[in-house]
């Protein structure tokens, strides 16, 4: 984009009007810097409290133990069961929603007719905007009973149920990212493969998806990041028992649910309070890295597709 219009006439401007223009520019610049400021503040503030946690509790305490009992007399602050709980809900959710979301994305991009797409796409978009607390409530009120009968689980609320709840919000995200990635594949690739006598599914599988693979995988990674950071659904249906388990049918407790559930009752300035900031900082770093990776992948895909065109 060229932004070098006005050069000769600008010089003729009066001193006062250039001053106003400069002031306007700096005003907008300062507004632009507010996002930078808040990102910095978030990092500084969380790091500061996390360091207090390390000073108060000790870094080994977070990883040495295997129990999270912040309120008992002999309080223990291990982040391990919380990490396991987070992964136990986020990984199944990502797998389920990748399989279904990519299928839906392929349907929208390659198979659905223009008219069908025009109806379904806004519907999915609207659905993606549904508050997560609503999904949590429905899983709790309706889903939990069905799933208990279906999978014969011991506890009514468990990691699998939370994973299904998370999938409902991840599927729209992943499917629309997949669709975007597939539609960015140049059409002459499709035409060329048809000309070679290939069938539609084989074309999708062997030509379109490999060309768009980085966009699709970026969608999956973003979905995983969202699953880790999601709070309400896991708070409501994961059961919130901080036990060390790898069984997906057990109650688990995630990092987000721990913060949401305990920050309201914690005494400000106590070790427990700092411990919550520590696990919050941990979550912030992890999601930051995940988002960075997916952004790099999308950037690479954009360059690759630019070359193709």
């Amino acid at each position, binding site marked *: 984009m*060229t932004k070098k219009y006005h050069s000769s006439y600008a010089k003729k401007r009066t001193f006062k009007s250039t001053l106003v223009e400069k002031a306007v520019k700096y005003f907008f610049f300062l507004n632009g810097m507010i*996002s930078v400021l808040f990102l910095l503040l978030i990092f500084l503030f969380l790091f500061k409290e996390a360091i207090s946690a390390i000073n108060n509790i000790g870094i080994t305490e977070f990883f040495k133990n295997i129990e999270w009992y912040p309120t008992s007399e002999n309080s223990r602050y291990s982040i391990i069961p919380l990490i396991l709980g987070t992964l136990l809900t986020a990984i199944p959710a990502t797998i389920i929603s990748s399989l*279904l979301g990519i*299928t*839906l994305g*392929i349907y929208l991009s390659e198979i659905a007719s223009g008219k069908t797409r025009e109806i379904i796409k806004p519907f*999915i978009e609207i659905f993606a905007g*549904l508050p997560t607390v609503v999904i949590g409530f429905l899983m709790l009120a309706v889903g939990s009973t069905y799933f208990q009968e279906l999978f014969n689980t011991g506890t009514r609320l468990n990691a699998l149920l939370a994973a299904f709840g998370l999938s409902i919000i991840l599927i729209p995200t992943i499917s629309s990212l997949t669709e975007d990635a597939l539609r960015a594949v140049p059409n002459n690739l499709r035409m060329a493969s048809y000309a070679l006598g290939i069938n539609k599914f084989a074309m999708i599988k062997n030509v379109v998806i490999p060309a768009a693979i980085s966009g699709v995988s970026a969608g999956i990674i973003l979905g995983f990041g969202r699953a880790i950071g999601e709070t309400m659904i896991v708070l409501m249906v994961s059961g919130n028992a901080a036990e060390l388990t790898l069984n997906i049918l057990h109650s688990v407790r995630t990092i*987000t649910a721990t913060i949401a559930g305990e920050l309201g009752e914690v005494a400000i300035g106590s070790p427990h309070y700092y411990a919550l900031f520590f696990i919050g900082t941990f979550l912030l770093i992890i999601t930051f890295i995940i988002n960075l990776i997916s952004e790099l992948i999308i950037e690479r895909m954009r360059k690759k597709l630019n070359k193709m065109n």
Partner: protein
Amino acid sequence: MVNRFKENIKKKSYSDSIFDNVMISVIRIISFLLIIIFVLILGKIFYEGIEVINWNFLTGIPKSNISKGGIGPAIFGTMAVSIIMLILAVPVGIFSAIYINEFAKDTFWLRLIRASVNSLAGVPSIVIGLFGFGFFVLFIGKSIDNILKTGMLFGQPAIIWASATLAVLVLPTIIVTTTEALNSIPLTFRQASLGLGASKWQTIRYIILPQARSGILTGVILALSRSIGETAPIMFLGCAFFLPNLPLAHLDLSIIQIPIINPADQFMHLAYHIFILATQSSNPTLTAPFQYGTTLVLVLITLLLNLTAIIFRFRFRKIIEVVKRNQ
């Protein structure tokens, strides 16, 4: 020999095309099933919720352990928080977008701002809530109290801090959509305006902003809908379980008193109300209709907002298409 070869090819392609058709149908069926599940989820909320919704439910205050009465204060609280959030976030968001798209050259600062907006969009809402609690309530609020000697007026969770935290949360949404809207205005508009001797600020004010209006509105509405649905960050920022009085203050103008939102008050919130009803109800079967009713109200608000945003975006794209075609 040649014939057999031909037959082989035919057979192979025949079985291939069967496999192909089957796989395409599988994709189709899975997609339709997903859509049906989505429809069923919405249908369940509508079917169960519509029974309880009436004027008393929408305006009344909760009574007898929230199994009777209404959700008036929750709707009011949601509106109050959202209005202050919009006042805080929209100008900053739009001005940032104007800087990114109209002023910034491809420099360090532009890249820094873009990267920050993207990163801010990826921060989990609970972390933003944690930040809001620590920074706005305990740091800013307590400092204001110390300076103004107001005791515990600002140094506790309240509407203003919930709004400020939600503003941080939705800022990237507003910036990204506004930047896109501004970016789709053809460059020739700017050139024509500048060529006529208008200054840069005049060009933005009288040419670009009016053209981008529906695109910007899309972003504002999406931000509003997102902030209404967010529960996690406001849970410890002044949301109250039961608060029959509206968070109002009266602005005394000696002749008349004007009721305004009291930003230092606690509030009820629809999303939080659903959470409380679903998890802490002493008698779930008794409060079930109320849960569905409250959920339906929240879902209707967000669905309508999202639908409006989609329509605005559609209209904006149409306008831009026409403009580009006429060039």
